[in-house]
């Protein structure tokens, strides 16, 4: 799927689920959710999510497909620079349970 001039397939964890197209809004929303969980105001969370999504889109431009794990790792790396606590929650999302 083409999204904002970017066509990247996201290979889901362990390849057990079918791959899906990269959707910037989905990444943005998940970062906003992690930021809000740290008690951050909505405006600041939206700003950080926008900046992180920009970095991730830049990283994706040269790649036709990436794993969801790598996508999360890169997003987390950039998020850590803005807010370490939010990055911690973003990384932990799948290992809480």
């Amino acid at each position, binding site marked *: 799927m083409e999204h904002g001039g970017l066509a990247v397939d996201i290979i889901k964890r362990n390849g057990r689920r079918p791959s899906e197209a990269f959707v910037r809004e989905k990444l943005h929303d*998940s970062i*906003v*959710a*992690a930021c*809000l*969980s*740290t*008690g951050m105001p*909505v405006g600041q969370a939206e700003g950080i999510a926008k900046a992180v999504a920009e970095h991730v889109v830049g990283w994706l431009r040269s790649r036709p497909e990436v794993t969801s794990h790598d996508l999360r790792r890169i997003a987390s790396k950039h998020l850590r620079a803005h807010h370490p*606590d*939010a990055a*911690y*929650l973003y*990384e*932990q*999302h*799948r*290992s*809480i*349970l």
Partner: protein
Amino acid sequence: MDIATSLAIVTLAALVHASFQLSVSVLTLLSGHSIGAKRSHARTLRLTSSFVFGAGVMTLLLLSFISLVLLTIFGQDAPQLIWAIACGLLIGVGIAVWFFYYRREKGTSLWIPRSFARHLSERSKATKSAAESFSLGLTSVISELLFIAAPLIISGLVIIQLPGIWLLVGIAVYTVISLITLFSIWVLISSGHRLSEIQKWRETNKHFLQFAAGGALTVLGFFVYVCKIIADVAGVA
């Protein structure tokens, strides 16, 4: 076994139950999704309190059911073989918890089937109403059954021996104490504590919680064995 000793056993079993982390993980996820979805604080509180209430109701139902089954089969005093099996179960689960409670990876992932964990995780994300949250609370206690079965059974055996109103007191004591950790997390979330802090504390102290739960189960198993079986055989009780 006198009433004070019986209630002490029920209290320790309930504390072990409270130290298990599956329901706490689901509550953390539920709060995270609710806050992340920009729901109001009141809505988040309604969801989390329904979850805690659901967990409490299921604990109450499970303990009442186990007590009723034991009472129907064995009457007020179960045979020593059943006590010995229950003690063995406590010690066995205690040792298993030391080795297998948390997965050997970052975070607080538990040794439950991954498909099960995914289901609970997806349900906590999809939960929007208080009724769904209540049912998630019920489900999370059922999911923990592998770990909480031993303390529930030993509490059931002790509770059916209690006279009259003390039987109800025993069930109430177990239910309330087993909810202590969930209630504490609920209070922290309600008072605006950051989820990242709560999760960091849980991750930092996970090995202590694991050791404490396994150790308490083992100690409880030995204590009941000495208190009930050895004392009966020696004619002390």
